[in-house]
């Protein structure tokens, strides 16, 4: 008891209010920092002293500065980030190739125009204009097929390039998380929580999960272990690296895993979710599947047209040669659909007749060629060329549609969960202002207390003079 004690309480209080104001300031300064969790000063009353039969309060003390975090929401955010990462990459890849198949003027229109030109040729089998038109339409069809296949391949290449930047990013993130693990471990040895380091680490973990679909476990020492489908990406202060500089047989990047111990192996198939998993799936299965089907359509077109063309006779009375350049293998077929150069440069060589002696009036082979429009093919699942192509486009459309829906759904879930996180951990300026006023007023009151104690001291000193 005494003036000194009062002064001591006031001094402590001034200090406490300053801590409060500083924390408010920290919160306000980070109001828009992503991943920041607001912090709260834990003020507790000092142990009272027992004097003269009464407990006398000894003021307040700062017990700690805590970050406000909802652990459950944080965990949920990780899962959602993984799902959104997957859905985002799927949608991005599919939407890009969707534009390769426009709803008007695509391969279907080129096919239709090609068969139309053959029909026109049947109407006037001797006409040079009709023959030139067939060549033009056949060239356009080949060009269209080649271009679409090229665009699909370049879509695969784009995904491949993205894979490289993603693995680089993953390496950076695992490194940073490992470093932060160390800092948190070191800082928390004293028992106080390393708030800002944890926030930083959480932000990086979220991104890493989004990219790799990894799962995260926090150890007792505050460090996290990040595992993606059995691959140990981060363990304590050690980080694994991913490398995408080796290529597989098809010329695409493989994802090579390098553990901190130097163990290296191809982990391409181990990534099944997250952005990497989705990119690989799109590249190797979906887009490749579409390319394979396009190749099948191309090879069916070329073989059927060539077979029918060979049955006919050209204007010189010679048997029809290959209409399109023959295609040796199904793989890559659409990339090499080209009219036979000999035919393309001499329209007289188109075999419109079924008899060598009845040229140029005979139109039977031209009719038969035009009729290929409605011939079904076992290799296309008993569909016509046109329907085979439309089935392909329809399937792609459905995939894009469902990817869009899945992305929308997951995105809105993520947004809602982010809002829930913000609700718990975000900074409310009004709240901080109110706290600021409270701390300020308390500070003012504490300083008044100092002045009062000072005056009391003064009075005492005056008394003794």
């Amino acid at each position: 008891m005494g003036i000194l004690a009062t002064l001591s309480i006031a001094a402590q209080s001034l200090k406490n209010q300053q801590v409060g104001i500083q924390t408010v300031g920290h919160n306000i300064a980070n109001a828009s920092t992503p991943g920041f969790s607001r912090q709260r000063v834990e003020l507790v009353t000092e142990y009272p002293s027992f004097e003269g039969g009464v407990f006398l309060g000894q003021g307040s003390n700062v017990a700690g500065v805590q970050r406000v975090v909802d652990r459950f929401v944080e965990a949920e955010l990780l899962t959602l980030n993984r799902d959104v990462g997957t859905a985002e990459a799927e949608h991005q890849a599919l939407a890009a190739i969707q534009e390769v198949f426009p709803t008007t003027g695509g391969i279907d229109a080129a096919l239709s125009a090609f068969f139309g030109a053959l029909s026109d040729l049947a109407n006037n089998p001797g006409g040079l204009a009709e023959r030139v038109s067939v060549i033009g339409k056949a060239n356009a069809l080949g060009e269209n097929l080649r271009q679409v296949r090229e665009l699909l391949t370049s879509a695969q290449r784009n995904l491949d390039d993205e894979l490289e930047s993603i693995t680089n990013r993953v390496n950076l993130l695992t490194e940073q998380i490992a470093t932060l693990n160390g800092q948190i471990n070191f800082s928390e040895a004293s028992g106080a929580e390393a708030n800002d380091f944890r926030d930083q680490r959480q932000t990086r973990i979220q991104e890493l999960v989004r990219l790799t679909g990894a799962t995260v476990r926090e150890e007792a020492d505050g460090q996290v272990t990040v595992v993606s489908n059995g691959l140990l990406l981060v363990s304590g202060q050690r980080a694994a690296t991913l490398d995408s500089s080796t290529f597989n047989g098809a010329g695409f990047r493989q994802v090579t895993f390098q553990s901190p111990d130097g163990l290296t192996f191809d982990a391409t198939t181990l990534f099944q979710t997250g952005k990497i998993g989705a990119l690989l799936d799109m590249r190797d299965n979906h887009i490749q599947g579409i390319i394979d089907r396009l190749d099948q359509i191309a090879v069916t077109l070329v073989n059927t047209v060539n077979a029918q063309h060979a049955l006919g006779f050209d204007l010189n009375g010679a048997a029809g040669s290959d209409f399109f350049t023959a295609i040796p293998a199904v793989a890559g077929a659409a990339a090499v659909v080209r009219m036979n150069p000999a035919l393309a440069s001499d329209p007289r060589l188109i075999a419109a007749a079924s008899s060598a002696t009845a040229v140029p009036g005979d139109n039977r082979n031209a009719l038969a060629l035009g009729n290929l429009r409605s011939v079904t093919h076992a290799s296309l699942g008993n569909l016509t060329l046109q329907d085979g192509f439309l089935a392909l486009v329809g399937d792609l459309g459905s995939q894009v549609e469902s990817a869009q829906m899945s992305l929308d759904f997951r995105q809105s879930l993520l947004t809602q969960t982010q809002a829930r996180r913000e609700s718990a951990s975000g900074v409310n300026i009004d709240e901080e202002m109110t706290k600021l006023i409270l701390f300020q007023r308390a500070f003012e009151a504490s300083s008044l207390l100092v002045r009062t104690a000072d005056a009391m001291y003064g009075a005492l000193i005056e008394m003794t003079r």
Partner: protein
Amino acid sequence: MRVTSQMLGIQVNDGLARAYQRLARAQEVVTSGRRINHVADDPIGATRAMDLRSFENAVAQYGRNIDNTSPFLRQADSVFDDVVKGLTRTKELTVQMANDVYSPVERRAAAREVRQIFEHLLSVANTKVENRFLFGGFINGTVPFTETASGVNYLGDNGEIRIQTNATSTLPINFLGNEVFQGAGVTGGQGIFDILRDLEALLNGQSAPNDMSLAVNLDDAIAAGAGFTPVDAVGTEAPAATFNGAADFSTTVTVFDSKGTGHDLTFLFAKTGATTYKYRVVANSAEITGGTPGNLYQVAPEGTLEFNPGGTLNAGASTLTDITMIGLVNGAANITVAAADLSFAGSTQLAQPSAVLTLNQTNVNGYAAQLGRIDAAIDQMLTFRAEAGARMNHAQLAGDSLEVLRLRTLGERSRIEDADVLAAYSDFARLQSAFDAALKSASQVLRPSLLDFLR
């Protein structure tokens, strides 16, 4: 629930982004006028619309094909009309000239008119449509009909130029000249040019061509002396034992008398040696004055035909008797088939157990015969004209149904693919006002803070 400023920010951003996205999509629908702008907008609808569009293309193509048939069929119709007119005029002339009151000079004048008609019909038979012969089949480099000393030759082929009228059916647009003008493959078919040439010769007083050629393939595998079953006995006359007929060894020949009436005669052949045959000519009872119905009568005695090993007639060894058909009294003139008129030059002996007989007989006499042929030719032409009409009808109907199909397809595609303009506009307006409201409310919510009141 605790609300923070960043949370408001996230919500506002998210909401505005979504509203903007919806607005952009509505805008796309309004500007393009189409409900489906990407396949994913409606995968089923989009592929259906693409399918319908290519079907529309095909239908348009079929329409163009059908339009293409019109000049050919119309031209054919007008050619048939010309031919019928020409033949009708020829018939008038023939009826007129059949009267004995006309002098040879007048007949020769008529012959010149017939020649003109012949020339005209020959030129229309060589009609070209769009640089293609209408009656030449597929052959385009050679004129289909040319006149030679012995008649008119057809140089075209049997090619039918077919045009696709829908996915499964085709329509021929040309007519085959050998069918139309020469009666090839037509039951009772008439050679129009032959009629006119015969008539011209008749009017010019030249003897009508009397060539009768009979080609017989005789079977040398049959043992010499082998006869045929007595069931085939000829008529009431008891035939020689070695002279029984068999169906394969007989043929029927129609000869015309001077009035143009046809008479059916039957030639019977039987093998009597390795290279010797006997023949006889028999006639049906109807051809014989006073004949018993159902009986056949021999109208010429049998003779022996001897063939060289190569199949040609060994004239020296054969005993050919003149076949004078006295019994055939059916009009003013008797029918005489001279032995020399029987040509076996084309015959070959085949080592096959059958005897194939082909007969080419154009023995035509008299005006009445020509009249009969002209009538048959006019019928033949009218049949083809009806066929042309039917094809035009077919084309017309196919075109009409394609038009209906086209409109229906167009409507269906529009229903699937096109935006309901009113709905699209009202959607757009609704989304726009929603977006405006979102913007306004966002600016209201985000602005105030305690700071505004602490000043």
